[in-house]
């Protein structure tokens, strides 16, 4: 497929004056020269072709020998055999319309004219009988030689402008942005458009009916789009981290940048949660504080433990009242007059609390699914398994990297990756022997067994430790110890869990170094798997303990506040351990490498580990939002501090990553991990608590109810009592939400849509295979034609 015979076409000299870029006027001339030639000689050689075809059908291998005098072994002909017409032929081939996209202005404008005409007509291909047969089949829709008025560049431009005017404004601006012309030409085109738009006579060309409806729709769409772009511009302008991210990407590239972008995404989620809760729950409760027993004085320990003076504060569930705030019927039992302020609406706090938490999760779900969709769209392509080396060469160089040292490192990276790819391909051609493969598999199995064993061990350790803490607390409850000791004991379990979460990944790194996976990508996936498994299993155990309340928060009356405090402690401890890990892992390690070992290498930023820590912290926040409504605010503060600390540590202590990292692919994986075990797990936990757990009797907005889920039912009953006309409102939860048939139906629909999409994907893969075959066949056709033309010319020259 990569053999190229030398061309011996001798072409009349006047077509050579085109040079590199033919003027658009001559495109027709090029086509007609081919056309004449073939017509002239077709009758002469028809007989010869038939004979050769018969020969070829008998001996397929005879294809090469007749062409040997012209064929060469390599991709380019050697100097001695180069025919004088070779360069001309290549130049002509290079000026074929399909090859001049992006180069010849006339071709670009024609192509875009046809594209916009197609958009207007919404037809895929004009019927074959209409156009002349000299055009290549794939180019017949380009209308290149069948439009006799398209002689000059100015004409083509005005045609394009006319076509653009007939498009809806949204599409018009899109096409204008995407045309690969130089900026001056785009500006002149746009000037033409605005001039034409001001002369109303030319609007008759549009084939769409200019009904007021369509015009309104256009205006609305354009207005919305303008507003959206202004909003985006505002957001971009308001970004305080634009230069920080530029610095990071300039020195470390897209891979490390993806961590900071992920952090920004999480910050956005938390800010939205916080604002929702602030507006609908926290601010209103703060305006109408309940009567609280004497508040304890503030000592510094509260920031760590979340207990003490924070217990009866807005931070936790227990503070929120279960009544309707500012209810006019209940406010003045002593018969005083109406309040001095203007009309105040009563606010049903339990309902608001439940619905705000629900809306919070719903909004986060939608945002996450949208991010996942976006990310997946960028990184997944159907049938993209081949072409690894080519892709690497053309998309591996990160243009954002600007520092000299980083650029040098990047070159080295790419060199190493290319060598690895070559070695891998060599290995694939000669695979490992049987004993080597057996040994490799044994090592893998052992490593996995060890990893799973450690996970189990950690879980058991956490369980026994929490039992121990429970006993210690009971003993302390009996004896009167100091406040510090009592509060300090509460921190022990979070401390141990965070310690395990920080140390085990380093152990898994050692395990991976012993294991020696085949490819660096597999290493990353295996590391992520193991770390995630550990974190999720430990969190699962803790969730079970919080729900069963046998060992944790067993004695407390207000168990929700207790669970909220526990989660607060976990979040704070996680932050402290991240700081310690940054300090020891990066700063101390760099000092050791520099001073003791005297090596120039610096520690690398472990992207996967850091992102998993972020996911873990976010899971804790989502788990705790029901019990501690201000936890998203704590997470916002934590993420802000984390950004600056990580950036400073990165700049001071780390070097660029040496392993390959597919940034967009890994971003998709991380967003998916954020959705699938993290968010869904938290949503299941919160749903279970809302549906089944009995809220405590003495505190919180749901005291006295059987489950939190009863709140809207109670409210609907109240509504029905006050106004019997809206009894149908109670119909909705009963028949839609709780009815299993409806949910069954919904699930069936979703499964059907998924199946349909899988089938579409399969069909698309098949079409891609067929199209690739078609292109290869067209290439063969082209080669055949050129060889024929050479033969004809040679015969012509010899005969003359």
């Amino acid at each position: 497929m990569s053999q190229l015979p030398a061309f011996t076409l001798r072409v009349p000299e006047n077509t050579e004056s085109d040079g590199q870029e033919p003027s658009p006027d001559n495109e027709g001339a090029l086509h007609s020269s081919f056309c004449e030639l073939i017509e002239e000689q077709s009758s002469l050689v028809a007989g010869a072709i038939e004979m050769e075809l018969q020969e070829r059908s008998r001996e397929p291998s005879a294809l090469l020998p007749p062409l040997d005098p012209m064929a060469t072994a390599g991709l380019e002909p050697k100097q001695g055999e180069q025919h004088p017409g070779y360069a001309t032929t290549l130049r002509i081939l290079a000026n074929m319309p399909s090859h001049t996209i992006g180069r010849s202005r006339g071709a670009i404008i024609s192509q875009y004219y046809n594209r916009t005409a197609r958009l207007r007509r919404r037809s895929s291909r004009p019927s074959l009988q209409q156009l002349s047969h000299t055009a290549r089949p794939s180019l017949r829709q380009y209308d290149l030689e069948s439009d006799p008025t398209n002689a000059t560049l100015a004409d083509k431009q005005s045609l394009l402008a006319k076509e653009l005017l007939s498009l809806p404004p949204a599409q018009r601006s899109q096409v204008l942005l995407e045309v690969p012309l130089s900026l001056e030409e785009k500006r002149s085109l746009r000037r033409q458009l605005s001039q034409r738009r001001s002369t109303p006579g030319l609007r008759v060309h549009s084939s769409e009916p200019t009904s007021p409806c369509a015009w309104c729709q256009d205006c609305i769409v354009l207005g919305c789009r303008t507003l959206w772009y202004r909003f985006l511009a505002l957001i971009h302008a308001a970004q305080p981290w634009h230069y920080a991210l530029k610095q990071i990407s300039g020195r470390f590239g897209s891979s490390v940048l993806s961590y900071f972008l992920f952090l920004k995404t999480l910050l956005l989620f938390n800010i939205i949660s916080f604002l929702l809760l602030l507006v609908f729950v926290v601010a209103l409760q703060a305006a109408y504080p309940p009567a609280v027993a004497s508040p304890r004085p503030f000592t510094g320990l509260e920031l760590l433990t979340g207990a003490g003076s924070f217990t009866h504060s807005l931070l936790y569930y227990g503070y929120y009242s279960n009544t309707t705030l500012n209810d006019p019927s209940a406010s003045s039992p002593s018969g005083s007059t109406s309040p001095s302020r203007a009309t105040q609406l009563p606010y049903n706090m339990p309902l608001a609390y439940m619905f705000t938490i629900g809306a919070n999760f719903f909004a986060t779900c939608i945002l996450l699914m949208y991010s996942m969709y976006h990310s997946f769209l960028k990184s997944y392509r159907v049938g993209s398994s081949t072409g690894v080396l080519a892709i690497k060469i053309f998309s591996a160089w990160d243009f954002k990297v600007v520092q000299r040292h980083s650029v040098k490192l990047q070159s080295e990276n790419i060199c190493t990756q290319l060598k690895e790819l070559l070695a891998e391909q060599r290995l694939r051609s000669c695979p490992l022997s049987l004993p080597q493969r057996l040994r490799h598999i044994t090592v893998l199995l052992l490593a996995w067994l060890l990893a799973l064993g450690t996970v189990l061990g950690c879980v058991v350790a956490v369980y026994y430790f929490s039992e121990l803490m429970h006993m210690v607390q009971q003993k302390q409850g009996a004896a009167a110890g100091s406040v510090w000791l009592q509060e300090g004991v509460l921190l022990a379990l979070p401390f141990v869990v965070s310690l395990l979460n920080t140390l085990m990944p380093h152990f898994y790194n050692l395990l991976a170094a012993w294991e020696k996976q085949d490819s660096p990508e597999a290493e990353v996936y295996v590391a992520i798997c193991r770390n995630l498994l550990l974190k999720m299993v430990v969190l699962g155990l803790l969730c079970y303990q919080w729900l069963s309340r046998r060992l944790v928060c067993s004695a407390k009356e207000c168990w929700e506040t207790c669970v909220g405090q526990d989660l607060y402690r976990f979040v704070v401890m996680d932050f402290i351990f991240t700081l310690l890990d940054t300090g020891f892992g990066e700063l101390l390690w760099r000092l050791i490498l520099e001073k003791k070992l005297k090596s120039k290498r610096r520690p690398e930023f472990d992207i996967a580990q850091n992102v998993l820590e972020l996911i873990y912290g976010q899971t804790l926040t989502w788990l705790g939002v029901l019990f501690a409504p201000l936890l998203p605010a704590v997470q916002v503060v934590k993420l802000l501090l984390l950004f600056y600390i990580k950036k400073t540590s990165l700049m001071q202590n780390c070097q660029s990553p040496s392993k390959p990292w597919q940034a967009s692919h890994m971003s998709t994986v991380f967003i998916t991990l954020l959705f699938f075990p993290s968010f869904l797990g938290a949503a299941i936990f919160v749903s279970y608590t809302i549906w089944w757990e009995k809220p405590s009797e003495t505190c919180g907005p749901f005291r006295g109810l059987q489950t939190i889920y009863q709140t809207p039912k109670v409210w609907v009953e109240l509504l029905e009592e006050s106004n019997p006309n809206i009894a149908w409102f109670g119909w909705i939860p009963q028949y839609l939400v709780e009815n299993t048939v409806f949910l069954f139906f919904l699930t069936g629909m979703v499964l059907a849509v998924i199946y349909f999409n899988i089938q579409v994907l399969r069909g698309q893969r098949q079409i891609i295979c067929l199209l690739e075959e078609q292109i290869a066949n067209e290439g063969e056709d082209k080669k055949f034609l050129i060889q024929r033309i050479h033969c004809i010319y040679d015969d012509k020259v010899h005969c003359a």
Partner: protein
Amino acid sequence: MLLSESKLDGKQMASLTFFLPDLSFLPKILKSNDLHLLSVFISYSNTCCLLQDCTFFTRKEILRLHGRYHEMAPNVVPMDYTKDPDVKLPMQLIINMPELKENPFKERIVESFSEDGEGSLSFNDFVDMFSVLSEMAPRELKAIYAFKIYDFNTDNFICKADLEKTLNKLTREELTAEEITLVCEKVIEEADMDGDGKLGFADFENMISKAPDFLSTFHIRI
């Protein structure tokens, strides 16, 4: 020139124009100097509108780009762009920009966006270059210009020689000649669909569409 004497830097100009509303109702007590300044700003903002529609930048960013273009050659580049001055900066100045200085393809990038074929960029070409290399440009547009950049001999094909040059620039000539030949052959084998031994634009675009990282790596932050 009045403006160059007033010594306004790009940032101040940008901030002024950003906040400048419709000025037709201005009192006539303003001095002629200020009026001239303001009229330049108004017409400049019109130019910015035109540029804004044809590139992926907002007005503020275009003004910032103008500031950068101006500071490369303050004596040559005028502050006043109302009459579309025909000013071009040579390639040597542009490739010394911090964003391009260490890029191995800097000459090719500048040549691909230059209209006169020698590598000098007018302000329009300068904005065009950073617009195509920005985050918001679509994949197809970036593929067209990436093809131009990697086509060193400008023959509309990426042939083996172009690939060898690309590899050498990427790896700073660390690969051996045998490895380079092997890699080039493999690349052409993988990407060439119609069998002519070179990569045409269709082959290149097809391969780029399979590269998920292309959009994020073919991106310069300005």
